[in-house]
């Protein structure tokens, strides 16, 4: 097995809001190995993006982090100095935000935004590029993101580009500095399915060519299935199951994962899928035990009292559920 690149343990993130404290992330743990493609799935509002923002250390001002161990190549990101953090962001990890329209500064041309990113990414590698070299590099990145007419893109403002183009621009920006790990937060979800598919293919091709790792966040299970090596399933701020992709789809263990898979409509018919009843629990007063207990059809007395821990349920397959032992 290849060596560990990113290792998150006991990550807790709370948010201070008007009425109290939202306990969103509850001991999230995940691992990404070198050159590994990892998927993170779960319904909206379950803390996927928050987990990634915690890794990048870009949580909003009202976030509290009571506990966190986030190791990147053995070094704790939470304890990094400003210059170490800059180095990490400029060279190693990059994040593609969920909404490409919101992730691009509306009042600057792509040229301004991409040039700064390229400049500082290269500066960190000891290369002080000239204006011309920066432009060449920027054009190369845009081409790598499969954008036609990169010169025209450079001279455009974000609002002059289509949604798909903006998404590709965001990918090009991320490529400037993601030499080891790319975090893609639901890429293409805001676009139509054909474009989404193109974007996912492009990302897959890029990470395989460049041999970088990727965390792909998604709620589209089909997208994850053909892309990643391993999947983490997240529910209400907890990782509830992790397995190699084929294993997870063949034999989902956690009741939540089962529900999630059953919620996908099938072409072969069978009516509207059953889905999962209820909603993500209130983060202000989350259930004491398993956070899925209120919606789980297999709930047992113990589920309300105790938080299940991740237990081994097979080869590379872990689940946090009392149905499979304590």
């Amino acid at each position: 097995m290849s060596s560990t690149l990113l290792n998150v343990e006991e990550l807790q993130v709370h948010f201070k809001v008007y009425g109290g404290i939202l306990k969103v992330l509850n001991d999230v743990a995940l691992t990404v190995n070198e050159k590994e493609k990892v998927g993170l799935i779960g319904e909206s509002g379950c803390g996927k993006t928050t987990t990634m923002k915690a890794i990048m250390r870009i949580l909003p001002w009202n976030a509290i982090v009571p506990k966190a161990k986030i190791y990147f190549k053995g070094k704790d990101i939470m304890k990094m100095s400003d210059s170490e953090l800059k180095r990490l962001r400029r060279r190693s990890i990059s994040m593609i935000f969920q909404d490409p329209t919101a992730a691009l500064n509306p009042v600057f041309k792509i040229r301004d935004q991409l040039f700064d990113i390229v400049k500082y990414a290269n500066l960190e590698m000891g290369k002080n590029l000239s204006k011309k070299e920066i432009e060449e590099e920027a054009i190369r990145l845009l081409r790598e993101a499969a954008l036609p007419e990169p010169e025209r893109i450079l001279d455009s403002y974000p609002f002059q580009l289509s949604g798909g183009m903006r998404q590709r621009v965001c990918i090009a920006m991320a490529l400037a500095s993601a030499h080891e790990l790319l975090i893609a937060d639901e890429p293409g979800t805001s676009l139509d399915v054909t474009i989404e598919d193109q974007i996912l293919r492009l990302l897959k091709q890029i990470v395989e060519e460049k041999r970088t790792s990727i965390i792909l966040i998604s709620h589209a299970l089909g997208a994850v299935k053909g892309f990643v090596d391993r999947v983490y399933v997240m529910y209400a701020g907890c990782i509830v199951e992790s397995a190699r992709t084929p294993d997870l789809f063949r034999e989902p263990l956690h009741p939540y994962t089962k529900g999630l898979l059953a919620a996908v409509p099938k072409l072969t018919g069978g009516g509207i899928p059953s889905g999962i009843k209820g909603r993500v629990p209130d983060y202000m007063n989350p259930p004491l035990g398993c956070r899925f207990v209120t919606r789980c059809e297999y709930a047992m007395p113990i589920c309300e009292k105790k938080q299940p821990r991740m237990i081994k349920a097979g080869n590379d397959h872990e689940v946090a559920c009392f149905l499979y032992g304590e």
Partner: protein
Amino acid sequence: MRLITYIAKRVGYTVFVLLGLSILIFTLARVLPGDPARMALSPRAPEWAVEKLREQLRLNEPLPIQYIYWLRDVFSGSLGESLVTRRDVLTDITEFLPATLELLLFALIFDVIIAIPIGMLAGRKANTWIDNLVRGFAYIGVTIPAFVFAIIFLLIFGYILQIAPTVGRLSPGVMPPPRITGLITIDSLITGNFSTFVDALSHLILPSFALALGPIAQEARITRASVVENLNKDYILASISHGIPERLIVLKYLMRPSLIPTVSILGLDIASLMGWAFLVESIFNWPGMSRYGIIAMLRKDLNAIVGVVMVTGLVFAIANIVVDVIVSLLDPRIRMVERAK
């Protein structure tokens, strides 16, 4: 559309706005009770003399005809004779307007150079003691009118501490510089008279600062709110996540989108500055348009009233064109949409 065409178009609209304003103020001034001819002469003046003046002022003509005569005069470069000063209103205004403009200019400078930095600072340090301090000051600034500040400044700096002059534009004995723009600070700099410049500046500080405090508070609040909003935007988080230096993020990626509302409000500030300037000028005995305007209204000096209002309207219109051009330079979306029309 090119910038120059955009400006030309805006100027075109402004002409219509001013025309509308002139009809409104022309009518309003005349329908108010009181006989301007009788007020200009004394109560004991014989009726035939009053009638003669009325004839001379064309007050016996129907209102639309009077207006057309006035408009004809405007196009030949005259705003009509003032009954108080017995000079052309345009001559009077060219004499008094520069003092007011200078006051407004310095108030605006104070507004911009104080409000933007403290607003940005408060926004970046949201919910800390710095932010609370700025917000506290802003509440005071927004709620207390300019003339109260003017009186307080007069008391503290002019009377108790005696560190700044409180009357007029220059100290007695200081020769005003030759009139080029009418703004003493600028004229004295052009002619290289530095001591006059300093003296003029010391006279400007208290009234213009008293005038500026309200807008400073207003703009600081708006800048703060805008910075707080932008700080949580994905594009700022994205810049951070790409390892862009903090200084560059603040001064480039955060500042430009945050300043769009601030600059837009500046146009409105100019209107309130001009309104308050009347009172502040009275308090500091500032020889600007206010005294002229107030006397014109009390004496029902028709041409002067219309002239003062029109000039005020013109200044406001020009200021707003400038503001809109700056906003369109800051925000490409507004630029493209506005100019595509």
